């Protein structure tokens, strides 16, 4: 069973650690942080200070290289004149850029190397590389972990209405495999089989929460296609076959995790294995097309599913004509992840298809 912790106590400890390890930052970090995450003077400048030293941040501030010929294409190359303007050796600059690329601050764009453009772009890239864990230190991860506040369980109120969610829950495959009408976009093994490339990464969200209590292995982020290619190039990921990927998610059937992916039918980005103690996506992840239903006559009242449910949908209650308290999943709150279903030993739970295909949008459209 998973050890439960108080998210508020964990957060207070985290804040205290950050207070203890305050360090001053140069104005150049503040200026660049303002481009990525306007308004924040506390966290983002320090994150950048961890990622790039004084010499490196000067290079980042001067990017993109204005003298790069437009024909050179997407690369980490820079021009000779860029090096001479900065007064640094070109080889040294290239080495710095390569390091910053692997750390996730710099990207090879069509205009040559350039700094991350948005906060989440940096978040997803700069937390995934375990090779720099030692040099970045715990305080770097604590800074990231503090941005999201206390990691409480998802509330129904967190869920945006209609299609206006970036993420969706994918049911655990064993829970729905015998339900007629399962679509390819909710069939996790089929999703993985249909991709051209898969790389498994250390999950950046889990890395950012050094006090997480779910106990799920860090190597749990399945990236697909171009995202996998990018991560393999940065040496953050390990290439795996679709069968290996399927065996990974099968192993996670014993873990308190929920599959989350991008809220559209064609999944070309990633398949997550999330727990609320270390993941923000799970709070806003749209419900699947299924709900879990309990047969109170079969339920033995062991409460394992009550503890396993991350969405506070499962409670114990009494039913007419049945002795003792039995589990009950609120169909209004249940997000249809199937976690309770696959751990139920008494066979009291089943998944019921309740929403039409249109529930999952063709393509992610926030508006």
């Amino acid at each position, binding site marked *: 069973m998973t050890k439960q912790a108080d998210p508020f106590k964990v957060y207070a400890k985290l804040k205290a650690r950050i207070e203890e390890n305050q360090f001053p930052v140069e104005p150049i970090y503040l200026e660049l942080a303002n481009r990525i995450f306007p308004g924040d003077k506390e966290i983002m400048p320090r994150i950048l200070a961890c990622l790039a030293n004084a010499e490196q941040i000067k290079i980042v501030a001067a990017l993109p290289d204005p003298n790069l010929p437009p024909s050179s294409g997407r690369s980490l190359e820079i021009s000779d004149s860029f090096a001479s303007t900065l007064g640094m050796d070109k080889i040294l600059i290239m080495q710095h850029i390569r390091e910053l690329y692997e750390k996730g601050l710099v990207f090879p764009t069509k205009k040559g190397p350039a700094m991350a453009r948005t906060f989440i772009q940096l978040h997803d890239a700069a937390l995934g590389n375990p090779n720099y864990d030692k040099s970045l230190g715990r305080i770097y991860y604590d800074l990231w972990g503090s941005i999201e506040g206390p990691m409480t369980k998802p509330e129904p109120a967190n869920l945006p209405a209609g299609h206006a969610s970036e993420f969706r829950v994918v049911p655990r495959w064993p829970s729905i495999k015998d339900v007629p009408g399962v679509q390819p976009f909710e069939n996790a093994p089929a999703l993985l089989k249909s991709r051209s490339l898969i790389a498994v990464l250390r999950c950046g969200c889990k890395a950012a929460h050094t006090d997480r209590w779910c106990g799920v292995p860090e190597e749990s982020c399945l990236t697909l296609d171009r*995202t996998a290619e990018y991560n393999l190039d940065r040496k953050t990921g390990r290439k795996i076959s679709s069968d290996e990927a399927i065996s990974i998610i099968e192993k996670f059937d014993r873990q308190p995790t929920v599959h989350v992916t991008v809220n559209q*039918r064609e999944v070309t980005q990633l398949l997550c294995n999330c727990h609320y103690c270390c993941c923000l996506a799970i709070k806003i992840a749209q419900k699947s097309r299924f709900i879990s239903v309990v047969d109170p006559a079969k339920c033995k009242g062991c409460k394992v599913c009550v503890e396993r449910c991350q969405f506070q949908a499962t409670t114990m209650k009494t039913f007419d004509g049945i002795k003792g308290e039995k589990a009950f999943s609120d169909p209004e709150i249940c997000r249809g992840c199937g976690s309770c279903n696959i751990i139920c030993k008494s066979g009291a739970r089943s998944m019921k298809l309740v929403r039409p295909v249109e529930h999952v949008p063709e393509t992610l459209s*926030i508006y």
Partner: protein
Amino acid sequence: MGLFHCPLGSPYYDDDACIDCGLCYANTAEEKVEASRRIREYMKAHAPRKSAVSKIAVCGKGGSGKTTVVTLLALALKGAGRKVIVIDADESNPGLGRMLGIKGEPQALSVLFNEDGTFSERERFSMDDIPPEFVAAVDGIRFIMVGKILDPFQGCACSLAESSRQIVEKLELKENEALILDMEAGLESFGRGVERQADTILAIVEPSLESIIVAGRIAQMAQGMGIGRVGAILNKMSSQNVATHTKQELEKLAVKIYGVLNFSPGLAAIALEGKPVHDRIAAEEVGIIAADLLKNSIN
């Protein structure tokens, strides 16, 4: 929005897959609306082109006339110059071979797709690779049977559905070949993904509410699989009124209608006697539907 959330799967801004829609760096609602519009335009322009009709799955409620329509459609497509292959994927119904006029059944193809079967490891195969004892031919129509449940202890039809899925997925059609699948009744096969490799799905609807509802579910599920060409064929329509009413009900469920077959006493008698299907009016009606399908004029 950022690295892992791009609808097009671009890992970061200005990657090769990036179309600069602006969604990842949009701050205001207006910017997001504008970015979403660009994505939709891009997807419209880059949607995979609709393929020609080559793999047709015929589905519907039990008793709606799937097998009869499959037979008529096979004859119509043959008449239009196609080399027709009919696959019987219905585990429980013995009628298709007889309706096509085939004497004696071919061996069940599922044998080759079982775990130790010679075809289970193959990525693709063509009709030429299938040994002759598994194919029955009559008047230029080739007939394959996936398997039948005859023994009450044979158990679940799942492994047969899995064989069907593999056959449809792996069978490579040559130019001018057309495949017609006679699916089992209801929706079970959809759950097993048998239809996924089809490019056209025909839902046969008889004048009954249940049949209409099943057609609605078929259209919905097929759409979820990304199969664009899905429509209903109205069968056993006894009068104009019945046809109009059925059409209206299907339109409410957003099901497209590909054609109408009127009730034919001749066909009903043939079905009772178990003779090969032969009915001039019904053949003409199906001929129109087949011609429309081949012209690719319906979608």
